[in-house]
């Protein structure tokens, strides 16, 4: 592992929202995470880069409390997730939001009900309050409530679905937002819009974001901290320059392919 002496996290004076220590996870004989160490300051955007099957999604699932590690510690907002039982994990998940690759909006509900769903489940407020909150969240991501409220997810474009997914993810005002490859399969203009939305969520709501991606351009655009995972290990961490100057052969090859594609 190439340790760039002082990580961005250590340079940053903001308190740490996420601290992961020596995280290991195996599925059968295959070790997917081989001792991950990670620190993410509050209010920052951390992008985890890497190829397919390198352990990015597994790491994200650990942060969401959907998987238990074989060993190691995951401390989020002062709470250790590893020993948490179901009920505590449910409480923990109310503090985080996740934006899925395809949005994962409920196709049997209209847009209003999709965004209102987590509020109706967890907030004891009147329907009028919910309406006001939903409209506020939609407007935050440049959606016109009057236009989209009664529409169904299948009636929206990919970019608009991403906006609704973001509005739903921030419905309970989470401290942490997890993004699962948010720009995969999108055109360059929509990709840029999604990048802006992630930065918008950071600046407007002060949310800490963890993004897993293999879209290098997008990652360089939004990240405060970049990590590169290869075969379950972080091979480089830091800023854009640290990634670009990394001597690791896989990272080098990854970047080379990206450059060739963009020429």
């Amino acid at each position: 592992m190439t340790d760039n002496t002082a990580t961005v996290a250590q340079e940053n004076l903001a308190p740490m929202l996420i601290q992961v220590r020596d995280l290991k996870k195996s599925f059968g004989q295959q070790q997917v995470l081989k001792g991950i160490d990670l620190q993410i300051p509050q209010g920052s955007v951390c992008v985890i880069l890497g190829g397919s099957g390198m352990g990015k999604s597994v790491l994200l699932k650990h942060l969401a409390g959907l998987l238990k590690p074989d060993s190691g510690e995951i401390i989020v907002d002062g709470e250790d997730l590893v020993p948490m039982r179901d009920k505590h994990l449910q409480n923990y998940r109310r503090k985080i939001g996740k934006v899925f690759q395809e949005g994962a909006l409920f196709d049997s509900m209209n847009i209003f009900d999709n965004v209102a769903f987590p509020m109706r489940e967890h907030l004891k407020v009147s329907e009028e309050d919910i309406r006001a909150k939903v409209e506020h969240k939609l407007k935050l991501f440049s959606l016109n409530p009057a236009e989209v409220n009664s529409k169904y997810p299948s009636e929206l474009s990919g970019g608009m679905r991403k906006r609704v997914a973001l509005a739903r993810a921030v419905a309970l005002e989470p401290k942490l937002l997890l993004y699962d490859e948010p720009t995969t399969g999108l055109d360059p203009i929509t990709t840029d819009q999604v990048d802006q939305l992630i930065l918008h969520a950071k600046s407007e709501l002060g949310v800490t974001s963890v993004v897993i991606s293999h879209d290098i351009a997008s990652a360089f655009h939004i990240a405060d901290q970049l990590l590169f995972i290869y075969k379950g290990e972080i091979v480089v961490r830091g800023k854009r320059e640290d990634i670009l100057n990394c001597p690791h052969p896989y990272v080098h090859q990854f970047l080379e392919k990206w450059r060739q594609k963009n020429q």
Partner: protein
Amino acid sequence: MNESAPQEKTASLWRFLAPVVGVGHLSIGFVREFGRVLLFGWATLIQMFRGPYRAKEFFRHMREIGFGTLFIVIFTGFFTGLVFGLQTLIAFRRFGAESLVGPATMLALARELAPVLTGMMVAGRSGSGMATELGTMRVTEQIDALEMMAVSPIHYLVVPRVLAAMLMLPFLCAIFDGAGFVGAYIMGVAREGVDPGIFLAETWYGLDPPDFFEGFIKAVFFGGTIALVSCYKGFNAKGGARGVGLAATEAVVISSVSILVGTYLITELLHPFLYGYIYFDSFPQVGP
């Protein structure tokens, strides 16, 4: 040469045993899957007693299962009554007992045919629908999204469906009984000329409430089984459209087989309770 001989012997032994190994794998697979369905059922049972109670979802599924299968249940019930009445007439005419076509048909319908065929219809229509809907939700990560929003997918998706199916199946079974009776009446009275008064009186006196209870109790179990198996299959769907299609097919096949096995088991279990007083008191004493 000497070294390879034992290896060949072992290989030929394995070839000989291959069918046994195959049966073993199938049996283990069946037991494992059965255990998983039971665990899924246990989790559903626990979630049933936890709030919040989702009345809106519950009524929505009641409507979907009830109204969705109503027409096909009436249709199947009517023709089952018609054909069973015809077959009973053909058989009973040999003994000059055409007037008993009503109770004979209704006994078969109430105890066995109504719950089994209603179950099959609901499995084919609503069960496949449940597996497809939940399967699509699984492959499009909507179930993961529920979990991420700290909402139990079993509580939100499975419990209302299982309860709605358990409640609706006996109603549909009763409607099947009614449609079957109309079919048997048309066959007996309108076609074969059995006196309507005799037909009705024989049916009235030939049937007891437990005959209907047996059907309704079976229907409750079948409703629970269909919904549970279909939700389980949908929950565990993998691999896109093909996986969802496979889940729907398996849900219908497993539900149908479970209904046929279940109806025998329930009949064996229920008889001493429901009919004990009829049979054991009225059996003629044979012997010295």
